[in-house]
Structures are given as C-alpha cells and as structure tokens.
C-alpha cells in the first residue's frame, strides 16, 4: 500500500516548552492508524502540524513522497488532508448543505444543485440527514457526519478524527466506526485519536502510542491487548485503575423518584439510591440519562412525578433548591457547566458553598477560605502551582477534581456525576474513581452517568439502563456485561438511529 503521509522527526516547542520531541509517524492508503496516549502526550499537536494548523519547530512533513511546507490549513486541504476536531467547526444557523460546501460556495448559489450534491454525500455515509435543515437542529452525532461529508466534499484522502466519539453514545459511535471503515476501504488513510481503547481495537490496523511528546511504541492492532496498551501509555494496567474494595455498606434510602415525567426524554422513571451506594445510569447519548438527573437537580422542570429525599417528598424549583437539599451535580460539560475557567481554583472550589465562608455582611473570610481550599486540594490531590491560579491553567482531570472539590466542600448527601471522566487522561481517571469510592464510603448516595461501560462496571453496585426516556432494566454486578447493557439500551422498538435525538 502506498504511503500517503510521513512525519519525520517532528519537534514542536511552545514558548520554550517542548510538546513534541522527534516524533515519527506514517500513514498508508487504506489503513486506520490509531493514535493513543494520555492527555498532553502530544497527539493533537502532531495532527495539527499534519493539518497545517501549526508549523513544526523541526522535522519534515512528507506527503506522497514529497516534502511539503504548509502555510495554513487551506494549504493542507489542497493536499487532501482534513481534520475533524473534537469541537466541531460548523455554522449552526446555516443549512447542512451550506456547511458542507462552506469553503467553496460560488458567488451565485444554485440551491437545488447544492442540496442534491449534499444529499448524495450524506447518503453515501449512510445517514438520513436533510440537506436543507439548519445544523442547529441536528444531534451531535449528525453534526459529526456533516463534518465528515465536508471532508469528503474536498476529496480528502487523509482524514484525521480527533476524539470523535467522546461525545457520542455507544450506538452512534458504532455507526461512526462503520463510516470510518468505509473510508478506509475506499482507499483513504484515517488517523483515529481516541481515549476509548475498545474502539481503537475495533477499528484500527496499527496503533501508535504517544507519551510525553514522544512515540512510546508502534504496534499492529492484533499484537497487543488493552492491558498491554495501557501499560505503554502509563506503565500501569487496567485492573489497577479500580481500587480493590470491600463490599460497600449500603444504608438507608436517600433518593427515591416515582413516576418522573419530563417531555419525551423522561417517561415514568422510578428508582432509588441508598446511602453508601454507587448507582450507574447507562444508555445511549440521548436516552434521557442526563434529562433525569437534570430534573432531580432542578435544572429542568418535571411534568409529573415525585422526588423523595430521606423519605420526605421535596420540590426542587431550581439548582439552588437542590443544593439546599444537599444534592450536588458534577455536570456533563466541564468547561461550560462545571467551572468558571478564568476564575481561581480557590473561587471555583467554594462556589457552591460560599455562605460557609462569608460573614454576616457578605464579606468573604479570606483566611478561612484559603485554608478550606488548601485542605480540599490536598485531600483531592489537585495538582496546581497555587490555589490562586486560574482553573484554565489545569489539565482536564484536575479541572474535574475542582468540580468535585466544590461538592466535597458543601458536603452533600446525594451526588450526581454526569460523565465524570470524559476527556480525562488515564492517570486522573484512576484518581477520580478513587474519589467516587471515597464518597460512597463516607455514606453519600452516588449516581453516576457514563458512556463507558467498563467504568460503570468498575464503580457501581447497580446499573440502571435507559432507552428513549424509560428505565429498561437494572443489572447487579454478577450480571455485568457489555452485551446485557447494550441489549437493554437498544431494546424494544428503539432502533439505534433514533437514540441520538
């Protein structure tokens, strides 16, 4: 197979700090080459150099056997290189067709022609998306498909996916992987960056592992297993990620919901969570998991149903009410909902419990706040230069620990975590699992949403599976398996395609 791209000895420094150090990478036509490694290992930087978004400090980019110098992404695109970023770059108010052909719209647009071409590309990808719909109306998965169609419209032969499935549920991820295989079979070279190792094994032909800006190893996919790969990434194996624990002591009921209804996404949901218990909420993205916890936390209004806390019915009119009832939420999107990025670690950590550190006139007791945050940071092992540093200066994992610190500070009875380890590197994941364990041990009721089944298996005493707004079933540890979760998540007249809505 011909070699499409080769990166020779690439180095890249950002204001003196070396992000890439002599990295070699090659991509052949008709292969999926996975790129894995912890956050900050240099995967995205390497691909941004391939895509012409960053100039390398040293080394050579070779396309089709010829050395090239890109003067920007447009240059790379002309060489058939497309990068599909984690954060999608679509114009939400323009139509699907306009987005696909955004870079090459003629001065006079012939709409029917444009829509016809867009429709052709989309159906080639196996998705039924209407070219005239505004992108705003699409699910995340569908938006990703639009990005892919955009790459195809430019006749890209080298396509880089930067963590495409991190925001997708299992069903949508499956379909994306199918598209990627299709692209490969048509002779494209695909680079696939992901934290989800099971997918890497499913889809890739070769795997390059990066660590600290260098290549830690290049392996053919069949020659290594998950544990081996994780060892390459961190020098630690998967089984070590979950602490060996004694059976949890499950106490009295903390939360009970009965017949909760909210729009199409929450339909007669009833369940309970006990003190000292970790309950998982599984299902595809869009199955209503997030909607259920948002209703419990008061972020959305229920249409019907009752919420009981410690056996007493409560009404939650907003997050402020929830916090008053000692309920905490670690939301789905860390940067948009979890932290105030430019604010200090100190100010973020006390955000939910400011009343505990102010005097009667509303003045913040600096010394009390500082020592409180110092204790929290130590106990949660937040790696920081100082509590005064902005949260934006922290890695994803440490940012998430700051969100957790917020709820450790106010000491709630029920804590809800929505995708607590999304976009977090393997090292920090382990620590977050440890913290969730600690909360359960301290007698809190814990409700965890996750799209990573292994994560739920490792953490939870029970797993509830949702589909189309309904609870489809409950699994106990002896019944944990990917197949059972999936069969419940996809059960009863609910094709995967509709799960994304």
């Amino acid at each position: 197979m011909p070699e499409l791209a080769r990166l020779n000895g690439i180095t890249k420094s950002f204001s003196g700090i070396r992000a890439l150090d002599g990295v070699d990478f090659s991509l052949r036509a008709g292969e999926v080459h996975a790129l894995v490694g912890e956050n900050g290992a240099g995967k995205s930087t390497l691909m941004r150099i391939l895509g012409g978004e960053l100039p390398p400090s040293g080394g050579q980019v070779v396309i089709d056997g010829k050395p090239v110098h890109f003067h920007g992404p447009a240059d790379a695109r002309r060489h058939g290189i497309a990068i599909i970023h984690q954060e999608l770059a679509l114009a939400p108010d323009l139509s699907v067709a306009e987005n696909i052909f955004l870079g090459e719209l003629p001065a006079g647009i012939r709409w029917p022609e444009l829509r016809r071409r867009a429709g052709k590309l989309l159906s080639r990808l196996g998705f039924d998306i209407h070219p005239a719909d505004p992108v705003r109306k699409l699910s995340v998965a569908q938006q990703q498909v639009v990005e892919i169609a955009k790459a195809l419209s430019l006749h890209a032969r080298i396509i880089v996916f930067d963590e495409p499935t991190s925001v997708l549920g299992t069903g949508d991820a499956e379909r994306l992987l199918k598209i990627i295989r299709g692209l490969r079979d048509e002779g494209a070279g695909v680079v696939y960056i992901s934290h989800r190792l099971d997918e890497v094994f499913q889809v890739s032909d070769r795997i390059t592992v990066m660590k600290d800006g260098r290549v830690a190893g290049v392996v053919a996919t069949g020659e290594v297993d998950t544990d081996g790969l994780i060892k390459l990434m961190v020098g630690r194996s998967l089984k070590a990620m979950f602490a060996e624990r004694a059976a949890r002591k499950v106490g009295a009921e903390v939360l009970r919901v009965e017949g909760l209804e909210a729009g199409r996404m929450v339909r007669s949901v009833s369940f309970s969570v006990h003190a000292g218990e970790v309950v998982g909420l599984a299902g595809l993205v869009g199955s209503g998991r997030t909607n259920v916890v948002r209703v419990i936390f008061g972020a959305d209004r229920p249409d019907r149903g009752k919420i009981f806390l410690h056996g007493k019915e409560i009404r939650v009119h907003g997050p402020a009410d929830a916090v008053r009832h000692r309920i905490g939420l670690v939301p789905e999107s860390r940067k948009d909902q979890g932290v105030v990025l430019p604010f200090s670690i100190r100010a973020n950590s006390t955000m939910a419990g400011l009343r505990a550190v102010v005097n009667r006139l509303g003045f913040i007791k600096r010394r009390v706040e500082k020592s409180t945050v110092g204790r929290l940071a130590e106990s949660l092992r937040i790696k920081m230069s100082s509590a005064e540093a902005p949260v934006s200066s922290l890695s994803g994992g440490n940012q998430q620990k700051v969100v957790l610190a917020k709820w450790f500070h106010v000491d709630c009875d029920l804590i809800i975590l929505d995708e607590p380890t999304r976009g977090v590197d393997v090292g920090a994941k382990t620590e977050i699992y440890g913290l969730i364990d600690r909360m359960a041990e301290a007698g809190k009721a814990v409700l965890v949403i996750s799209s990573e089944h292994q994560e739920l298996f490792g953490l939870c005493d029970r797993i509830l599976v949702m589909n189309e707004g309904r609870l489809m079933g409950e699994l106990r540890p002896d019944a944990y398996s990917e197949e059972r979760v999936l069969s419940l998540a996809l059960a009863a007249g609910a094709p995967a395609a509709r799960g994304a809505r």
Partner: protein
Amino acid sequence: MDAAVSTGGEARRRVELGDVLQRFASVAILLILLVAASFMSESFFTVRNLFNVLRQVAGTGIIAVGMLYVILTAGIDLSVGSIAALASVLVAYFLGQHGQVYSVALTLLVGAGLGAFSGALVAYLRMPAFVMTLAMMSIARGLALIVSRGQPIIVENDPALVIVFGAGFTARVPNPVWLLLAVYVIAGVVLAFTRFGRLVKAIGSNAEAVRLSGIRVPRHLLAVYVISGVCAAAAGVISTSRSGVGSATVGVGAELEAIAAVVIGGASLAGGRGGVINTFIGVFVLGIINNMMNLAGVPGFYQGVVMGGIIIVAVLLQQGTSYMQGR
C-alpha cells in the same frame, strides 16, 4: 534537562509580562496623557484644575460604576443617561414640595425602580439587555420630558443641596468629588471582598456553571441593574445640585461615555473581566482628554472626533496586550 527548565521559566515570565501590561494598560494611557497634558498647558497640573476635571466627571464616573457592574455580568445598560435626566428633573420637582432628604431619597428610589424593571425583564423573562435598556432609555427620557413639560425646572430658594453640596468644598475638595470617591471605594470593596461581588464576576464568565453551583443567578442580575439605576439617578441629582436646574436634556450620550470609560479601563463587554480602579482610570482619562482639549482651545465640533480616536487607540492598546497573553 536544565535547558528545558530554564526555557520553561522564560515562558512563564513572558506570560506574566503580558498579564502586567494588561493590568496596567489603562495606567499607561493615563500616564501618557498626563505627560502630554503637562507639556501642552502649564495650568493643567494645578490642584485646582485636577479637581476641576474630577468634578466634571463626577456624574459620568458614578454612572460608570453601575455600568461596570452590569458589564461584568455580560450585560449592558443603555438607559443610564435617560434615568439621570429623569432624576435631574424629579429632584428639582420634588424639592419644590418636599424636604431635601425626602426628595433625594425618592429620586434615587425611582432610579432603583426603573433599574429593577429592566433587570427583572432581563433576568427573569430573558429579554436581551441591549433591547430592554434601549426601551428603558426611551421611556425614562420620555418621563423626564413629561414631568418637566419640556421646560427646565429651576430649584427655588437655594436649598443646601445646591449651595452646600453641589457648589461646596470639604477640605478643599469639591463635594461631588467626595461622593465620587466614596462610591468607588464602596464599589471596589464590594467587588473584591464580598460574595455578591464575586458572583457578579462569575456570572459574567460562566452563568451556567454558577447556576449549577446552586446560586440564584437571576436575582444577582436584577441587583446589578438596580445598582446601575441608582448610580444613574445619583448622577442626575448631582447635575441638578451643581446647576440649580433640573433638565430633561441632562445625560444625553452619558451611557456611551460610561461604556467608553469602562472599556478604556480594560473591561470585557463579554463579561467577567474588569475592575473598579481601572474604571476610575478610564473615567479620569475621559475627563483629562476633555479638559486638555478645552485648555488647548480645540473647537467643540472637533472634540468628539478626537475623543473617538483616543478611545480607539486605548482599546487597541488593551487588545494588543491580551493578544500577547493569548500567544
């Protein structure tokens, strides 16, 4: 290894330099202006003239504090100039019938009420702040014209508000300047040291994260518009106390001057960034520019053009420093 450590240190220093420039860009602008002014006119650097500058900006300055609070939450308040006009007219009207304390208090209360109205619609009904306060701008100016029947209201009997407060000095400092300073000190302390101040800034940075931390965001939003309304009303009262006349034409364009001052002070219209001291500098810069042009005899028509040019330069300087930070 050693090399890596030392280059890392260099990077950190560069970031800090950008940080320092960002923080002190407005100070730098002020210093440049002060030096330029002292070359242009000998009478500039007299205590008398500097206090004169401050007295002239007292009203705008107080408005700018309220505006800063609103802008910190990523909002905007276009109604301040009109509310100042209404307050100017109302306080003159009330003084004809009631005592001074009562008149001033009632006037400030009206400012608070109009601010609360805008704030409630912005916070609870999610009206865009720009549109809501644009409407209030029109309403308040209209009310001012209705109350005054389009005529200036002359304050009779020269009450203490006019003689002592508006025209008087305490320890050789004009009284409105004392008020200006007091407002800035209080606003600065509240912003830096209280729960409310922190939440105002946090809401401007990421309202959703604040809401999901269990904080009632709407009431904080409502509060900043009340503060802005009271500040605007206070500016209107100052105007009447200085001239002895309540007029519905007071404060035309004051909202833009206040926004300019806040922006020259380095605040971001996107919310979350800005400070009281820098806003004060922004106000002072505006005052000095006006004063310089008067001393230098720049004809009135040209002053607006020069002012606009200087605002552009000032903001470019701010952006230049944040650009350096971003790199």
